[in-house]
């Protein structure tokens, strides 16, 4: 039980070993074994869910030495808290669905494909559970490779371009992050930190200039992955070219790496800098929401449209996260899950019709409702979930994000962002109308078959979750709440400290707390238990040579 | 026994000849033989130094180099055969897949 987290993470690798012994021609066996492996992984991950205590601490922690190379000490340090819990579950949940969706979609190199999927799963899970910066970086890169192959080998017409673009874009960001990470480590060494353990770095006091540089490097890496507005162009290409399962995983989990990175790393590590950059990032997020919505509106390719809608949704997530309050971050986390479910479902839906018609152009469709009623119903539910209709999951997240952002100092941003709600309705409904409504005049569409049992099996869990999260998100929120509260407190404490530095605006003080309760420069206010009292920021850093 | 230097000079000369051979010949097998020649030149240096310094480590090294050379010969010649099977030639100029 104690190492169930490792078990979950590395079960897919065991699955890969198993796959190696299966001849490549027995495709059915390969698929079924992979499916079984992912399902088992999901079941094992449910043990994490049931064993998870609702508190703010990291749980299922495993911390053993791994690599000790000179001054660098990397540890195999993993653990899970409310923030990463649901993302892990989401990953293990999406994987069987993704595997199931490839049963007929992928006919060539099935073995390799399945190996890629399983490797990807390990990479993603590892990144979510790493509590060691270096381990995180490794998993972060591990994810990249299978995805690269999935796009590059099983992709569409322009697959090489898309794969290389995806790879290089991400790589540029992650190399910057690597540099920042090493720099951070040396800063930590000067303060007496001996390894890459994330938690120690939370207590590390950095001066503003350092924070800004490091934050910029981290934020850039994560912004590419999210992707945020000017760095998003890899996404439509990658999505359009990737096979269905690739798109689903890319949308459902991989993009969450970026936002998760902000929540887990960039913000708590460099809180003051995060506060300083909040308006900037919020601006980009809001631009992303509106921009992506406008661009999505005029797309001709359904998959590209969904890809752009992803950009808009992730813009909401970013806005919520940078509200720095419980509501906003909770909304952001929920929206990550929601986006995983609904956009994943949308990609599956696109995959279904692509498999049938081998085209994704909107103009090739029309009137499918008549021919495919079950498909139409599911598509509609998912569409409205993506639009954020109350009662579906999309609403809860979006609402909390906007509410949280409105409460914070990002009020005007929120008002602009809220108009994205209108635009999302426009583009989603428009595409729905053009694909599903109207006359069934294309003769090729008149022979289309409705969803088969396998496809319905894929969609049903997603649809159930859409409604469950929409009507009863409480269990989800409850599990993540303490961790988010802790994060908010952590960030807030830091911002109070930052008030001693003149460059930070004192109005950043959380609303609702009387000003007298928080004299500037008094750091002990609101500090959670166990959080070491930090000296005033002006105090000199600890002896740089102490670590040696 | 001659002094150390004479062996070293011989070794240097053989090594240079080997180098020239590798660089000028196109026949892969001849190139391979030249490499063997260079290895042997080095071996000679090892043995000479070993003897001069009264330390057997150098000779042990020679032993290992011979092992490596044997392995190399096996793999290298296999490569040549397979190359020849594909190209009907043993000329390194025909190994031009990397050519732009």
């Amino acid at each position: 039980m104690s190492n169930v987290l490792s078990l979950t993470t590395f079960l897919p690798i065991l699955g890969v070993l198993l796959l190696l012994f299966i001849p490549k021609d027995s495709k059915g066996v390969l698929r079924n074994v992979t499916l079984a492996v992912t399902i088992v992984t999901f079941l094992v991950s449910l043990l994490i869910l049931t064993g998870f205590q609702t508190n703010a601490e990291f749980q299922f922690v495993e911390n053993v030495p791994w690599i000790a190379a000179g001054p660098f000490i990397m540890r195999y340090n993993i653990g899970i808290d409310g923030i990463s819990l649901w993302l892990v579950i989401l990953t293990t949940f999406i994987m069987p669905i993704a595997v199931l969706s490839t049963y007929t979609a992928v006919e060539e190199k099935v073995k390799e494909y399945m190996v890629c999927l399983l490797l990807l799963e390990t990479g993603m899970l590892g990144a979510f559970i790493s509590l060691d910066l270096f381990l995180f970086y490794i998993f972060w890169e591990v994810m990249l490779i299978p995805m690269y192959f999935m796009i590059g080998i099983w992709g569409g017409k322009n697959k090489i371009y898309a794969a290389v673009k995806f790879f290089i874009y991400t790589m540029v960001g992650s190399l910057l992050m690597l540099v920042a990470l090493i720099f951070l480590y040396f800063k930590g060494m000067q303060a007496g930190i001996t390894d890459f353990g994330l938690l120690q770095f939370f207590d590390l006091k950095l001066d503003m200039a350092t924070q800004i540089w490091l934050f910029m490097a981290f934020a850039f890496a994560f912004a590419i992955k999210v992707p945020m507005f000017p760095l998003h162009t890899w996404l439509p290409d990658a999505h359009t070219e990737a096979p269905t399962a690739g798109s689903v995983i890319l949308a459902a989990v991989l993009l969450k790496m970026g936002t998760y990175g902000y929540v887990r790393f960039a913000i708590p590590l460099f809180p003051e800098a995060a506060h300083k950059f909040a308006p900037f990032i919020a601006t980009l997020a809001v631009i992303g929401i509106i921009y992506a919505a406008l661009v999505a509106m005029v797309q001709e390719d359904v998959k590209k449209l969904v890809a752009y809608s992803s950009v808009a949704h992730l813009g909401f997530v970013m806005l919520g996260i940078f509200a720095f309050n419980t509501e906003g971050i909770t909304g952001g986390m929920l929206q990550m899950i929601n986006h995983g479910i609904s956009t994943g479902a949308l990609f599956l839906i696109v995959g279904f019709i692509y498999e049938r018609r081998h085209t994704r152009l909107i103009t090739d469709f029309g009137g499918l409702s008549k021919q495919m009623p079950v498909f139409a119903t599911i598509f509609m539910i998912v569409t409205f979930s993506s639009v954020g209709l109350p009662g579906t999951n999309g609403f809860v997240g979006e609402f909390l994000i906007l509410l949280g952002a409105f409460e914070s100092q990002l009020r005007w941003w929120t008002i602009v962002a809220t108009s994205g709600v209108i635009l999302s309705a426009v583009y989603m409904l428009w595409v729905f109308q053009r694909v599903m409504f109207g006359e069934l005049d294309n003769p090729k569409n008149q022979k289309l078959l409705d969803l088969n049992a396998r496809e319905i099996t894929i969609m049903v869990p997603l649809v159930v979750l859409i409604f469950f999260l929409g009507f009863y998100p409480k269990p989800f929120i409850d599990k993540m709440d303490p961790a988010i509260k802790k994060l908010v407190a952590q960030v807030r404490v830091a911002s109070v400290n930052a008030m001693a530095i003149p460059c930070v605006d004192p109005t950043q003080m959380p609303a609702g707390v009387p000003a007298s309760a928080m004299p500037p420069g008094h750091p002990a206010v609101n500090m959670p238990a166990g959080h070491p009292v930090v000296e005033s920021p002006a105090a000199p850093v600890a002896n740089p040579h102490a670590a040696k | 026994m001659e002094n150390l230097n004479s062996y070293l000079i011989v070794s240097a000369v053989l090594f240079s000849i080997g180098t020239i051979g590798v660089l000028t010949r196109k026949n892969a097998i001849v190139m391979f033989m030249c490499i063997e020649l260079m290895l042997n030149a080095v071996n000679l240096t090892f043995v000479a130094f070993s003897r001069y310094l009264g330390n057997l480590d150098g000779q042990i090294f020679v032993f290992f180099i011979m092992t490596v050379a044997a392995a190399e010969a096996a793999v290298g010649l296999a490569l040549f055969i397979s190359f020849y099977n594909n190209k009907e030639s043993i000329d390194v100029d025909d190994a031009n897949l990397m050519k732009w």
Partner: protein
Amino acid sequence: MFDKVWLIPLFPLIGFLINGLFGKKIKNEAVIGGIGTLMIFLSFLVSCGILMQMIGLPPEQRVFEKVLFPWIHSGNFKADMAFLVDPLSVIMLMVVTGVGSLIHLYSIGYMHGEEGFYRFFAYLNLFCMSMLLLVLGSNMLVMFIGWEGVGLCSYLLIGYYFHKKSAGDAAKKAFVMNRVGDFGFLIGLFTLYWWFGSNHNIWTINFVEIKAASHLLPFGGVVTFATLCFFVGATGKSAQIPLFTWLPDAMEGPTPVSALIHAATMVTAGVYMIGRMSFVFIKSPETMMVIAVVGAATAIFAATIGTAQNDIKRVLAYSTVSQLGFMFLAMGVGAFSAGIFHLMTHAFFKACLFLGSGSVIHAMHHALHKIHAHDDAQDMRNMGGLRKAMPITFITFLVSTIAISGIPGFSGFFSKDEILWMAFANSYHGNLNVVLWGIGAVAACFTAFYMFRLVFMTFFGECRINSKAKSYLHESPLVITIPLMVLGALAAVGGYIGMPKILGMLPNYFEHWLEPVFALANEYGSTYAHHGAHPSHAIEWGLMGLSVVIALIGIAIAFTMYVKNTELPGKFVAAFPTLHRVVYNKWYIDELYDFIFVNPCKAAGQFLWKGFDVLVIDGVVNGVANVVMGLSGIFRYVQSGYIYNYAFSMALGVVVMLGYYIFK
């Protein structure tokens, strides 16, 4: 009974699930329709029970909140799935479930033989559930579920004939315009929540709690902003200027849908919402004025368009917009209970009118179908003289028309006159009240005119339908006429529960009933109302008489133009071609919106995609790649691909490097 309030939305939900999931397999129309109707009727019974219980309680105990389960709790924010039962919501419950049951019943007949029969009833039940959630929601968020839920159902039902492009377009338009309103609603919600939270540490969106804390709200300022945002929400849902254009298009849906959603219930949600938060709205005189002005403007504006339409349902649609304008006028002048009263009476007579028109269309369609003609079954120019063929429909239609025109004795008179009188008498807006009254009166005149035009063109005169089809015209079956009769009766007598005091025959039960809900708002309002001389009874009698006269004038004009001198309209059109064209084309509002919003958005999308995304951003990205590739194109000459070249350079490198260390 109050405790069972959760049953009310539950029944339609069950109906929705049964019909939605298994309807296709059931196939039997009687079963499907029966389930749908039964479920909403059960809700009606529960609502009646609640009403009865509430009547038995003293006014101050008539508020009850039922928490079902916690919904979203995060940080300070708390929203439960909770229902609020108070006099206002009970009125709405009665209207929704009552009218809803009748329309369900009607639909069984009307939708007979349609392909997606089960789908229709599933949607209708879903709609009822959403509407009931909207009405019952004890906090803004539950209300918002209903608020968007009804928008969704409206989308689904307008797009019911999805194979028609116009239906799809109309559905989308309705949803998007509603979304514009929802945007306003959300911002309003955020503003109120944030203001209470940050200033008074009251983090709530619960109506009861906000009401309790409403004395903290300032007059104007942030409240104006919030309420204006809410009002944007209301204009979207209730089809007011500037977001009204979706409602006429929504007539693409089946007629029962138009009756239920786009006349009786959903479109009144905006009015209900203002009533629900009257204590907030009244705190902002500016917003009240905006509401009144927008309401009055919509009333007259839609009425003018209504005079020139030929599609029977479109006339009714514009009439609905216009009547909603009256309701907003009432809300804007602080006559909350009058507004809700008009909401109720309007639900009766407009539902009846729509169902009646549905009956007519049904008959027309049937007749035209028999002779395989492709004439438009909804165009009034093809109708005429139907009163003989369809007596029941005619009578109920006529009663409702009289009611909507404001002829004394019928329900519409009481409510409309109350609104006009309050617009005149309530002095929130200074001297604007006279103007508002004037506009309202003229709109009432137009209403009488176009409604009677409708009646005359449809039921009187010569039958203009294809003579072969004439013999096929006959009265609709009972399942259609029973709801018509019930609603017609309600349209006739429903007004007596809210009789103006001045008439003195019956006490104004209605206003009395809503007293506890709006007392607080009226109290706040009185703090800034101009305390001039209260208009006397004589003036009230005079105005009442005047409004009756105005209505009669409208009817008279309609009679002259469409019964006596049937060539008059043609002459009129010939005399003012431009005016007619503009009015007929709805003042070109749709085109204007296309020009201002839709086309620029599309153009912006195209530009941002093709211009910015592809050219600029990807241009930079690919540009970097191209620079790298260009450089490597130069450097690749170094890599000849010949083994000896590599060997050379390697040897050379070794020699040079060794040489450097040796000779240095």
